[in-house]
């Protein structure tokens, strides 16, 4: 038996009995970051594939989402800072070894194409919504925004310049979107002190999960049968990769040192077992995969069911990783 007890009244909030400094804000921030990265990636990728007119939801309408959720994510990040009045210090420094620094800069850089892309398609988006979904309340706001932007100085010229150079912009944006997606995982994996996180596979895993939630979101929003079917296939592929990464993450941890084996045990019999294997893997990955296979083989499944499950499991996955990681630590007896 080995145990240790702090006897001098160290009772610091968020640190004792175990670390719980990062919570809801960070988990949601990582979720929104991954989702935005995925939507931006799909829009740019399919644009370069020349599907501009075939996939209006992916390339045009859905791109309204990333700037909004990136801003929500940034607000959540700043709310989470304990010394938030000094947040601008993030933008006075670039520290190559700090993933947090990479993230702050990546989010700032990607904001430019994330905003300019939907602005440059605003006329098309309004037309699409009026035609396909006349009751949509967002259309009014978009028309108002469009009129406002056209009255501003310089902005219409910038938007037009962006639209003229869209191809180059897309080639530049895709790697930034991938960096953003990977960063949501690397942010956690850079912490050696938290054995659950300290795995290089977390970057690709969070990227896959983020792109998969983006595919689900676009699938849900689209009302084009062909587009939905394509995203069903993409999602099936991404879910398979995600499960493959999850298995390898646990294989790696179980083959690691004591601290990593103990971290894996949080999910293999420990407090996170049910939420992870039932909530995320079974209901959030396997079930939507089955539903999508059924859909592709001719059964009619309401599209929102698999899409909702994938989005929910993506969010839950980030909560579980953020909380579980802080519960894992080195044994300092």
């Amino acid at each position: 038996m080995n145990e240790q007890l702090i006897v001098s009244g160290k009772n610091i909030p968020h640190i004792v009995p175990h670390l719980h400094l990062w919570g809801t804000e960070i988990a949601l921030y990582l979720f929104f970051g991954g989702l935005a990265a995925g939507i931006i990636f799909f829009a740019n990728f399919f644009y370069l594939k020349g599907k501009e007119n075939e996939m209006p939801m992916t390339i045009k309408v859905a791109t309204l989402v990333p700037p909004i959720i990136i801003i929500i994510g940034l607000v959540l990040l700043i709310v989470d800072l304990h010394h938030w009045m000094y947040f601008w210090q993030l933008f006075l420094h670039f520290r190559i070894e700090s993933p947090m620094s990479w993230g702050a800069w990546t989010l700032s850089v990607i904001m430019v194409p994330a905003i300019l892309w939907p602005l440059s398609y605003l006329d098309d988006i309004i037309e699409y919504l009026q035609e396909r979904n006349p009751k949509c309340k967002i259309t009014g706001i978009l028309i108002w925004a469009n009129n406002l932007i056209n009255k501003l100085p310089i902005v219409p010229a910038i938007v037009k310049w962006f639209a003229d150079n869209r191809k180059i912009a897309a080639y530049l944006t895709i790697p930034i979107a991938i960096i953003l997606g990977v960063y949501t995982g690397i942010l956690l994996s850079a912490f050696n002190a938290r054995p659950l996180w300290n795995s290089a596979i977390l970057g690709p895993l969070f990227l896959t999960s983020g792109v998969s939630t983006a595919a689900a979101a676009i699938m849900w929003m689209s009302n084009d049968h062909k587009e939905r079917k394509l995203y069903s296939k993409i999602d099936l592929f991404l879910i398979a990769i995600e499960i493959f990464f999850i298995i390898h993450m646990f294989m790696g941890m179980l083959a690691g040192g004591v601290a990593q084996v103990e971290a894996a045990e949080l999910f293999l019999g420990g407090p996170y077992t049910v939420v992870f294997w039932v909530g995320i893997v079974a209901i959030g990955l396997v079930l939507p995969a089955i539903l999508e296979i059924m859909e592709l083989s001719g059964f009619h499944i309401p599209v929102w069911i698999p899409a909702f499950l994938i989005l929910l499991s993506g969010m839950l996955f980030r909560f579980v990783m953020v909380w579980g990681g802080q519960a894992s630590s080195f044994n300092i007896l």
Partner: protein
Amino acid sequence: MRYAMAMDTRKCVGCSDCVVACQTENNVPLGFCRDWIVEAVGGTYPETVEMHFKSERCNHCDNTPCVRTCPTGASHVIEGGIVKVTHNECIGCGACIESCPYDARYVHPDGYIDKCTFCDHRVANGMNTACVDVCPTDCLIFGDLDDPKSPVSLALKENDWYVLAPEAGTKPQLYFLK
């Protein structure tokens, strides 16, 4: 210059004097502490059970994950290997807290991240840290590892010692004599 601390687990009686001295010297807010006492119990009752006290604090590591993950450079290393935080560069993101295997840092009520400074303001004037000076059993030893005649160098030469979580690869500079 490489400042380090040795802590004699055979002499410590767990009085918490070092904790209070630090809180007083450094104006640590109520309810927080930069160093703390751990009572460690090990073995099997009744044959091999043993108990000892440890006075723990920031390990002022040679390989500092807290400085590496800091996005603004607020966490930094000063001469002698002391790890410090510049308050008005710190954004309070907590990356350093997440990266510390020893949980030696905390969020100050004013928002920035705070931690043990090895009393650099005293050390710069040739004094010992507050915790070392106040220890009634002389179980805390502070000094420069680069000086072979310093008290801490001699203590490490003459005694068996261990460090906490060496497998974390941080090369901690808080040595426990046993």
